[in-house]
């Protein structure tokens, strides 16, 4: 995994796995298949992606962020957002299907804790003529302590021959899951922490990147 110092525009024309810490508005072009980007974003920034090939992007944040993903040339974007916050913030994710047969899968998980007020605004755009495009969204926010949250899932679909799905949930952890783990002899505290960790680690993450998430999770785990 590489740490790369950025100017405001960066292009990837070779496959690989990259870690970036972004603290200013940035444009990123994905020009090769199988690029995996592990982002940590700060400072309420905007990141514009131009996706020409198959890419997987992960983003950990505790602050406002706006992501604009322009998807071209049969490309496919898998985007995973992991937000943990005790602030009033909005994460806006826009997926623009700019060519036919493009795919976006937007998976956004968040935890709003203490006085947190987390909003996900997740928007998929399929214009007329972008036939065969697929736009999927799955968003979930768990509220802890006095945390509040809101999810606005929007699908702006002008093309009849396309597929779009969304699901959204905000609220506490499911009591049924907690009870299930407790019946195995796991204390409520440990059960809660297992669910919390499982909820945020959506997929297997590289160790170094997982450590960043763990540091944030430690703030909300029950001790």
């Amino acid at each position, binding site marked *: 995994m590489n740490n790369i110092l950025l100017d405001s525009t960066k292009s990837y024309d070779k496959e690989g796995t990259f870690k970036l810490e972004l603290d200013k508005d940035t444009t990123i072009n994905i020009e090769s298949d199988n690029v995996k980007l592990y982002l940590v974003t700060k400072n309420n920034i905007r990141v514009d992606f131009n996706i020409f090939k198959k890419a997987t992007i992960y983003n950990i944040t505790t602050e406002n962020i706006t992501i604009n993903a322009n998807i071209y040339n049969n490309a496919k974007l898998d985007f995973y957002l992991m937000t943990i916050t005790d602030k009033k913030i909005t994460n806006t994710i826009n997926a623009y299907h700019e060519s036919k047969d493009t795919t976006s899968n937007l998976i956004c998980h968040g935890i709003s804790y203490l006085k947190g007020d987390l909003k996900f605004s997740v928007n998929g755009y399929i214009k007329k003529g972008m036939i065969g495009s697929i736009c999927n969204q799955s968003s979930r926010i768990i509220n802890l302590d006095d945390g509040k949250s809101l999810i606005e899932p929007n699908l702006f679909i002008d093309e009849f021959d396309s597929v779009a799905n969304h699901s959204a949930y905000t609220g506490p952890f499911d*009591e049924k899951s907690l009870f299930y783990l407790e*019946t195995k*002899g*796991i204390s409520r505290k*440990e059960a809660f922490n*297992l669910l919390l*960790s499982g909820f945020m680690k959506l997929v297997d993450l590289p160790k170094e990147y997982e450590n960043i998430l763990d540091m944030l999770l430690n703030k909300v785990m029950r001790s």
Partner: protein
Amino acid sequence: MFVIDKLNVLTKDTSKEILKDFSLTIKPGEIHAIMGPNGVGKSTLSKVIMHHPDYIITNGTITYNNKILNDLTTDEIARSGVYLLMQDPSIIDGVSNSEALRTALKERGSNDTNLYTFISKMKKEIDSLSLPKDTMHRGINKGLSGGERKKNEVLGLKLLEPSFIILDELDSGLDVDSLKIVAKNINDYLKVNKDTSVLIITHYSRVLDLIKPDFVHQMEDGKIIKTGDITLAKQIEKTGYNGVNEVESSENHE
């Protein structure tokens, strides 16, 4: 010894009385079956034993090995040796089977939490239950069929080694072959752990042909109304719950 003494239970949200002066004693090594039609409180009983938050015990006690379970939390009850094999096990994405079971063993202070020992044992039991190879690393019950979810519960049973097992509708969702595999695994466990007691909750007698009970109880309206052996289960299977009572009533009349 597992003893339920004159237990009265209400649902928390509607205050409906579910169990009424329910009593049952199960000695070490005994297998008891409770049969009854839908809605008489059979599955509720299993949840009440595990201190499910939806129910309130208004009177009576549940005691296991001289420890009163009423005041214990669900995890404390489980750690005292009670294992509930759920009728409809939860699906929990993100928490793997191995992670959950290893945590459960750690919380019991078990010696089996050494990674190599744990994985070897888990692999062996996964094979013995004919579960998919990747069950260990999957989210709990994720992508498993109804029958495989039941098998996964038996996997937990074999790793956590309880001394009192509650089988809540074990046969629901299991095909004939899977039921045989599950029953064989439970019987093998009971052969090795002779003092382990079992409470089987079921509608049908077919599971009792595979895990043979010492006692069969018929439940109605929140309490046990009749106790017998396997012949009671066969009679119920033949004549239905109402039929059994009608025969009994006619015999008494004569």
